[in-house]
């Protein structure tokens, strides 16, 4: 049996699949812990696992961390190149600095056999390299968001290289190679087919969506039973806060008197009242809800995207910022949804798109085809199999 440490960012969308994989590892008898830089409610952690929040070591960074978290909300008002700066310079790189001390201590104390870092949590891979511990990376979003920048935008590529190498060198790692991700195994939670990836390095392992994380959210199932059908699920994920009122206001304008029911995952307190055909709650048992839905509207958060196509549903994707546009393009390519960019959203067009998705079977059929690729990718079983193989094999351990 092995000890696995997941090193996660303060973004629930990235944490979520690691909780599902972790639950499966625990079932197989492994020891699993997570380490992150914000507190996480205990009921999210699979029974038998533990979440390490190194509060003391984070204390000096308190203000910096809050600033970093708040900055994420600026995404919707930023242009694409600004988003790149926010993501890399203002989020991922400082996050690694903030995390390193507490992470190093936890690693020294617990001595994990494998460190699993999320793709934006560089500290995990750097620490693994420093300590000579084998490292796997998890990628919850489709890879290749940036495309081949070495060719298409050489100065952007050079900026990345400089930024990441600078970070490595701060921690005494001098290497020609980038060490912020595992070069031995990178587990990606989508299918090659959906990601549009035809040519990839052998260490990229596409396992499709994973499931099984604890979700204790309550839901008014009785009200859903009695509700007018079809039912459309709407989620903006957990990150974007400032634009919720605007987004859901538009949703109300479009569907308040439409012959369907909206199930929305958002804080109901943003409006004094909601239309009768809206069922709204802050937290929902999304995996249990999804099979009862007829279509989904979302911004392109990857867990909702995975849940949607695992259930063979069509999606209206309304990309807002970050990597949403890339995901929207993949959905259009696969034919399983319609894209309307948030900045170009008209109420009538949104309504038309949703009824098109509900009435025209081609989107559902395309979604079912994507589901087949997801299932074939292997999900939890494949992820566990890969991690077990990895933890057993004698590795050429990285020495600094």
């Amino acid at each position, binding site marked *: 049996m092995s000890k696995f440490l997941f090193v996660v960012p303060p973004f629930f969308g990235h944490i979520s699949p690691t909780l599902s994989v972790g639950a499966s590892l625990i079932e197989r008898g492994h020891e699993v812990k997570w380490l992150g830089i914000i507190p996480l409610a205990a009921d999210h952690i699979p029974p038998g696992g533990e979440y390490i929040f190194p509060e003391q070591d984070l204390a000096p960074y308190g203000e910096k961390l809050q600033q970093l978290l708040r900055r994420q909300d600026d995404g919707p008002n930023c242009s694409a190149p600004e988003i790149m*700066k926010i993501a890399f310079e203002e989020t991922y790189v400082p996050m690694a600095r903030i995390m390193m001390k507490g992470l190093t201590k936890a690693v020294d104390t617990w001595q994990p056999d494998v460190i699993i870092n999320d793709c934006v949590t560089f500290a995990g891979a750097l620490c693994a390299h420093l300590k000579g511990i084998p490292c796997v990376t998890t990628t919850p979003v489709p890879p290749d968001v940036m495309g081949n920048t070495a060719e298409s935008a*050489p*100065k952007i590529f*050079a*900026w990345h290289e400089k930024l990441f190498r600078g970070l490595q060198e701060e921690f005494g790692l001098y290497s020609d190679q980038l060490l912020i991700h595992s070069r031995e195994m990178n587990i990606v939670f989508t299918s090659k087919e959906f990601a549009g990836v035809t040519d990839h390095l052998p260490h990229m392992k596409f396992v499709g969506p994973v499931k099984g994380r604890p979700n204790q959210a309550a839901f008014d199932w009785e009200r859903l039973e009695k509700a007018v059908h079809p039912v459309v699920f709407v989620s903006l994920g957990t990150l974007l806060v400032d634009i919720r009122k605007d987004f859901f206001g538009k949703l109300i304008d479009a569907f308040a008197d439409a012959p369907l029911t909206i199930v929305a995952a958002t804080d109901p307190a943003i409006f004094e009242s909601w239309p009768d055909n809206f069922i709204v709650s802050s937290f929902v048992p999304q995996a249990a809800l999804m099979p009862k839905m007829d279509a989904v509207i979302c911004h392109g958060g990857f867990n909702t995207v995975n849940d949607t196509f695992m259930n063979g549903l069509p999606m209206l994707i309304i990309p807002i910022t970050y990597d949403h*546009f890339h995901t929207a393009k993949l959905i259009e390519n696969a034919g399983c949804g319609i894209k309307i960019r948030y900045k170009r959203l008209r109420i009538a067009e949104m309504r038309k798109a949703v009824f098109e998705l509900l009435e025209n079977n081609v989107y559902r059929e395309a979604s079912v085809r994507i589901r087949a690729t997801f299932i074939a990718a292997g999900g939890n079983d494949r992820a566990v199999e890969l991690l077990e193989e990895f933890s057993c094999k004698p590795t050429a351990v990285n020495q600094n």
Partner: protein
Amino acid sequence: MDTIVTAVKLNSNEIFNLLKQFITEVIGEEFIEEMDISMESSFNKDLEMDSIEIVAFSEKIKAHFGERINFTGWLSNMDIDQLIELKLGMIVKFIESCQ
């Protein structure tokens, strides 16, 4: 279909109007109304073009001016801060200088 309509040199005002027309075609008239497009408009920030719209805009420039003007090549050589600072007027100047 746009064709190469002119080999005549355009002045900066004519180029600006042409680019404004391309932008309107790409992002739609009703969204343009809320914008005050000028030489000072930030290409990424004010016009809020996403990558698909930028590709469509580039195609229009190519269709109009032909191979003389390598707009995408010019863009792809910029660094991150140049992209953030890119203003419509700079594109006008670039096109003017290539004619």
